[in-house]
């Protein structure tokens, strides 16, 4: 029997693993001390003062303010200390650093769609380079899921209707579990796979060698294609045209003032909302003429559009619709039902066929590490 087959803790493979493990073992240590001392007293008293023993029972105490204050005070101080520590770790987990490499994740029953910045897409497997800040921007298409990588000690819910974020920096090359950790229906256990941390060189190679993918458009490219296809450019040209249509070029990150006086920074959620429900946060000085795209576009499509706008909404091809200053009076979407871009191939047969392709791969995580050790 090899004890390494029965690990007690998950592999530690991200920047959070260190601080979280320290917090975990600190609370564990305090808990063990408290539990052992208290329970030892219980057992000790139960034996010493059992009926019939000759222990001294004289002058029993029924109230002791000092004692009470001590055992109110000490746990309170400890609790506040651990609260602060826990909150600090939480803030680290929740706030992604600047310049993190952004990967998009869409959760749907029962698979993860993952899209890399250069357009490589994968299902249920996430390839990431080591020692790089990775930020996941996630959304669900149906029910709530949760993206959970135990080895990285990160988890966040993937909610329909809004983007959530998660970030981490993998530190150890290897293959780790990826789980959906929010119950999402029949095949909940199937919704997962692995996270593969590669060296930076391997990752670059993997990205470029990904010949398997037909026509890998990056989200930005797919977004541009869609942008032109549904005719966004008919109105949103390179210059602002009040009161009809503001330019979207370089929109991302700007402060926008809505007509009710609220100010927003044009972030992902703002852009998404403005595509889906343009009337919600009407830009000051503009009127609500844009059609509502809620339910007209899939989440992948919105994400592609959002990525394109985020990238600056600059046309890379000479687009026929980009005739600036010619506002199309009927910026209507004719092909609502037939909307299709490459980004949509997420939902094509090929992608779905891999939904349950988790594979009977036992060589994940600690087991894999252990096997590797034996080989060596």
């Amino acid at each position, binding site marked *: 029997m090899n004890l390494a087959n029965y690990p007690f803790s998950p592999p530690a493979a991200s920047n959070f693993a260190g601080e979280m493990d320290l917090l975990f073992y600190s609370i564990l240590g305090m808990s063990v001390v408290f539990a052992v001392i208290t329970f030892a007293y*219980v057992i000790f008293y139960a034996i010493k003062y059992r009926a019939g023993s000759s222990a001294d029972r004289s002058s029993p105490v029924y109230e002791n303010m000092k004692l009470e204050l001590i055992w109110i005070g000490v746990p309170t101080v400890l609790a506040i200390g*651990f609260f602060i520590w826990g909150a600090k770790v939480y803030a680290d987990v929740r706030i992604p650093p600047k310049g993190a490499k952004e990967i998009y994740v869409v959760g749907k029953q029962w698979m993860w769609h993952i899209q890399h910045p250069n357009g490589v897409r994968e299902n249920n497997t996430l390839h990431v380079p080591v020692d790089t800040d990775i930020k996941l921007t996630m959304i669900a298409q149906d029910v709530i899921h949760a993206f959970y990588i135990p080895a990285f000690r990160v988890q966040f819910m993937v909610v329909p209707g809004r983007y959530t974020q998660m970030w981490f920096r993998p530190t150890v090359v290897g293959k780790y579990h990826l789980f959906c950790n929010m119950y999402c229906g029949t095949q909940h256990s199937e919704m997962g796979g692995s996270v593969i941390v590669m060296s930076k060189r391997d990752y670059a190679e993997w990205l470029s060698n990904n010949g398997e993918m037909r026509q890998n458009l990056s989200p930005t490219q797919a977004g541009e294609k869609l942008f032109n296809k549904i005719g966004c450019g008919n109105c949103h040209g390179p210059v602002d045209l009040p009161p009809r249509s503001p330019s979207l070029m370089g929109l991302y990150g700007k402060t926008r003032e809505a007509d009710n006086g609220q100010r927003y920074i044009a972030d992902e959620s703002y852009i998404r909302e403005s595509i889906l429900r343009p009337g919600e946060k009407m830009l000051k000085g503009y009127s609500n003429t844009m059609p509502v795209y809620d339910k007209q576009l899939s989440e992948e499509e919105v994400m592609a559009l959002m990525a394109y706008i985020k990238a600056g909404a600059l046309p890379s091809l000479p687009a026929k619709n980009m005739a600036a200053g010619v506002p199309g009076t009927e910026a209507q979407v004719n092909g609502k039902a037939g909307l299709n871009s490459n980004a949509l191939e997420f939902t094509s047969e090929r992608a779905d066929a891999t939904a349950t392709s988790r594979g009977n791969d036992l060589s994940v995580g600690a087991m894999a590490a252990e096997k590797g050790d034996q080989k060596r």
Partner: protein
Amino acid sequence: MSTTVKTPISTDDAAHPPKLNYLTNGHSLRSWLLTEDHKRIAILYLISVSFFFMLGGAFAGMIRWELTSPAGNFLESDTYNRVFTAHGAIMVFLFLLVAVPAVLGNFLVPLMIGARDLAFPRINLLSWYLYTAAGTLILISVVSGGVDAGWTFYTPYSSLYSNSNVSLCLVGVFLGGFSSITTGVNFIATVHRMRAPGMTWFRLPLFVWANYATGIIMMLGTPVVAITLLCVIFERTFQLPIFSPELGGDPILFQHMFWFYSHPAVYIMVLPSFGVISEVISAFSRKRVFGYHFVAFSSLAIAFLGFLVWGHHMFVSSQSMYQGVAFSLITFLLAVPSAIKIFNWTATMAKGNIHLNSPMIYAIGFMGLFLIGGLTGLFLAAMGLDVHLTATYFIVAHFHYVMVGGTVMGFMAGLHFWWPKMTGRLFNDNIAKWNAVVVFLGFNLTFFPQFISGWMGMPRRYHYYYFAPEYQIYNILSTMGATVLGVGFVVPVIYLIKSLFTGEKSGDNPWGAHGLEWQTTSPPPTENFYYSPIVTDDVYDYDPVAEHEASRELGARGH
């Protein structure tokens, strides 16, 4: 006894107390099903609650059996989902929320405060019928195809995506909620206005304090979850997504409203158990509860603070960071009143004259398990760590330590303690003692390994884990423990039922305990007391030194 009693309840029987007790006062089915006697209703509750506990336990057995193998080859995924939902829903809504308050609380609160009944006996009966209706509906929903939404019924899965009997089950939970509300209203009105003369607030046994605090939570929290679940039923019936993003609804709002009740609900489950443990430890240590006022007020503190921590279930659900911080802080502070209770119980035992009967063994077991359950709560209250641990088996283990280790151990302790009072018979205390040890060990074997698999990241509600076989060893240990635990819960059924027929007559006060409930006969008459009690002495007026001296003298004479 220093409590003086006077004023016969019924002038006819002043000289000759009636032979009838509440059990023999009418034998027809009608006299049971239409009874307004709180003691009979408690017995009705005991029977139904035990039934649902066994049923929920059977579902737990199926889950444990399934998880021994990583491949999940015993049940289909759909079946497994229905099984764990049935286990959760039955255990939470039909056992844990009801067990201690509705069985022991119903039976004992009027007895302990010297009242003849609860304030509203008919409403009390109504609450049992609502509970039965709730149980029947949930049972029908489970039998006729099952529910697969999990007991938390998170939207939009429960509202728009699940095609199982969610609505029917939710109607059941809704009715169960009203049963809970009626019990709570009853307790509150009773404790406020039905106390016997001389039974001041600070002479109330801690069990009554705990049930009073529980009543507050039942009344304030339950309606919120009732309306939330009604909205989910509404969503499913009219296809109007209130909590789903299709029309602009917010799925996180459901979680807010659900946990606004369901976190305090944890205290509905565990506070009455705290009360039981206070009684048991005091009675078997023959010593007044240490720091009575602190224990009493910690119950109220838990009830009130418990309403301000629901967001700690949602640290990773995309609720605002800032609110998360506030919830985390209050959660940590909430650990303090629980700690106060544990420390005070421990101090109660010091210099007592401790009788290690079965209720005391259960109570000691409770303290051990609740210590672990409470302390592991700190891991989850620390927000950063919660990111890793939430929704894993660590959570599963934590709440089983609190719920089973807290509520069920408390329930068992209370049931054994007051069994002679309820039935007038003694059970075999030796078997019961060893059984308590078996339950304690089996419980730890079942749930401790889950802490480890959870820390290693095994997600809850997973049907199989062939891709992560390193979790198997812990699941096997857990299943072994569950088998032991199962035995530990079947044996009491046997010896307790046996005691009804062959048990020795217990007499009024077999444990030598203090308190109004022990001053009437066992089983008590329908009116609870032959005389209207007037309380003149303090609560828990034990004297360990005197008792010890007395027993030593007795021993000396015997030699």
